[in-house]
């Protein structure tokens, strides 16, 4: 059917409205999604932006003054926390990739009839709440817990050695909590690879490693991209791990936002920080996508 420039149809009695309905169908299907985005994303984002340029306090109320003081504070006062977020988030993402890729590869190529069970095992921790799982790390990393206790009994580490409330604990917590977010997209991408392509590579005298490097891994790149942004973005804004497993030097930008918003009621600075975080993530993700090459990512 050619797309005519809105000429009314003839011949079909009452067919005009049917035609208009058919044309409007895509918009009607999009409407709930757009409405959702509008109410729960666009309006709050605008509200947050307006809060970030307001001044005042909880007790005396906030007035829209279009002052940039909150942004000044946000940009200058938290270098350590921003660095912590980037470093811990980055390291955790790399670690989840190093741990998750072999797991996803094994499940996809060697899983056989255990694939479903293995995938279930990957997701099973999610049935418990995020908070409980992070608190359980406090027990695991405890000075006399299941990890350090035996090591101390064997005198491999000194008695005063502690893992809890250190950057290592925070990174470990973030890595653990976001591992499934890396494994599952990688698995999906690897699963889609036609094994005959690898066979073809082998037929063309590629070694196992060569075939992996030149066939499997490039085909898995969409999964790598999805997994890394699904891990890095939440890790950047995470505050639970730093709160429970870290100390005052390991606080991340999420902790600052939480403290400013809840404990201090300093809404403008909290909103400004949230905006900066959002903007930073948008820029990073688009650069990352460009770096990996968009043709490869959309398959």
């Amino acid at each position, binding site marked *: 059917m050619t797309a005519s*420039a*809105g000429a009314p149809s003839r011949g079909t009695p009452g067919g005009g409205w049917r035609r208009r309905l058919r044309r409007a169908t895509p918009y009607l299907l999009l409407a709930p999604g757009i409405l959702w985005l509008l109410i729960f994303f666009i309006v709050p984002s605008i509200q947050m932006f307006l809060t970030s340029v307001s001044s005042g306090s909880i007790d005396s*109320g906030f*007035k829209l003054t279009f002052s940039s003081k909150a942004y000044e504070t946000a940009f200058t006062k938290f270098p350590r926390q921003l660095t912590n977020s980037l470093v811990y988030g980055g390291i955790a993402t790399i670690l989840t990739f190093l741990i998750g890729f072999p797991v996803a590869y094994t499940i996809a190529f060697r899983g056989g009839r255990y694939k479903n069970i293995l995938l279930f095992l990957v997701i099973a921790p999610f049935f418990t709440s995020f908070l409980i799982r992070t608190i359980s790390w406090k027990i695991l990393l405890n000075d006399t817990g299941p990890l350090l206790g035996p090591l101390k009994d064997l005198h491999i580490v000194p008695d005063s050695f502690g893992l809890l409330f250190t950057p290592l604990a925070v990174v470990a917590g973030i890595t653990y909590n976001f591992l499934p977010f890396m494994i599952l997209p990688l698995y999906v991408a690897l699963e889609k690879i036609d094994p005959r392509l690898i066979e073809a590579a082998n037929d063309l005298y590629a070694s196992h490693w060569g075939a992996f490097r030149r066939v499997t891994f490039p085909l898995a790149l969409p999964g790598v991209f999805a997994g890394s942004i699904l891990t890095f973005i939440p890790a950047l804004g995470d505050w639970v791990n730093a709160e429970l497993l870290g100390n005052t030097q390991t606080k991340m930008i999420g902790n600052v936002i939480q403290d400013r918003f809840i404990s201090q009621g300093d809404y403008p600075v909290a909103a400004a920080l949230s905006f900066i975080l959002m903007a930073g993530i948008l820029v990073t993700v688009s650069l990352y996508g460009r770096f990996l090459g968009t043709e490869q990512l959309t398959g």
Partner: protein
Amino acid sequence: MAEQPQRLNPDLTRRRFLQGTAFAGVAAFLAACTGTGESGAPSGAASANIPTPPPAPSATASVAPTPKPSPTGPLHWAQWPAYIDLSGKAYDTGVYTPGSSPSLEEFKKKYKVDVSYEEKIEANEDFYATIQQQLVAGLPTGWDMITVTDWLAAKIISKGWAEKLDQGDLPNCTANLRDALKGQVWDPTNDYHYPWQSGMTGIGYNKASLKKVGKAEPKSLADLYALPPERVTFLNEKRDTFGLGLLKLGIDPDPTKVTADDLQKVHDDIKPLADAGLRFVGNEYLQDFASKKTWAAMTWSGDLASSGAEDDVWVAPTEGAMIWTDNLVIPKGATNKYTAELMMNFCYDPKIAAQIANYVYYVSPVKGAEVEIAKLDPEAAKNPLLFPPADVVAKQKNFQFLSDELEAKMNELYSDLSGT
């Protein structure tokens, strides 16, 4: 004929789509614009930094007593951990589970109403953040009764966010409230609150952990500061941490005399410790003591005695201790106000008050509790946590009511210390 790829709508060009989106965005912007700029509830005038209660409504004529309703439930009570007597398995864990508190069970049996006792409060500010929006908007908070420290109780009452108590339902309270706690500037006639427990902030430590590493027991704040920082915690209750910090520097923590410079000195004193691993916690220190991660900390007087191990000790520092009171307040919009009043009244029965004090080891606000507690446990009369000796009382300081500027400075310095 060559098939054109089906387009969404040939009339909808990219330009028109962007125009439409921009229009929608501006509309949303305007809508949001009118939403902001609303101020919060106007606060009453505060003289000498202490918030005053809202003006009493004129001509409250209630000649005929209103017929007493039967208590509705369940009573939703927000509480701190380790603040009610426990028995059975809960006695060992120190965590309340439904059915584990003898006092609450007696109340439930007597009034045939359920009690939802939730140990949800670990820090005043964090709890306040969970109810503040509803209170400002005039919505129910979901709580029938909350237990908050002096400064927060005063704030809530001064903003008109507390339900006025019907003294007719509270004969025990009016009769048995200790004189020392009567006549608070922020609610002189107890129209909006009744104290729950009074307590002190001082030094808590574990004897065994310190002995193992050959460190002396910290009896003064200077000793506490000298311990390895990663084994020490201070409180995220800023008034307590800064109050004790001032005492350590020999500055009298009188809110009317303390200056921003004094607070800065406290900050500079604590900063090296914070950089070296000191943490700021609320009631979580109970778990840290249990796991032997923390050797010594600034703690609240009753907690370690009720929920700690055998060798956890609390002492009032030689420089002095902070004193405060946690108060029962009924927030506006409580659905079971009458039941809450019944609970207040019930807890002011000297027998019940003694039962609770005997477990929590805080200072009971109820007259006659000391007589009853001697019947339960003769040793209790000599317990310095329940009945502080005169020399400790002489050095107790109250650092609850700060001016707005001082509070803002304290918040800023604390943020810097806690790393956020």
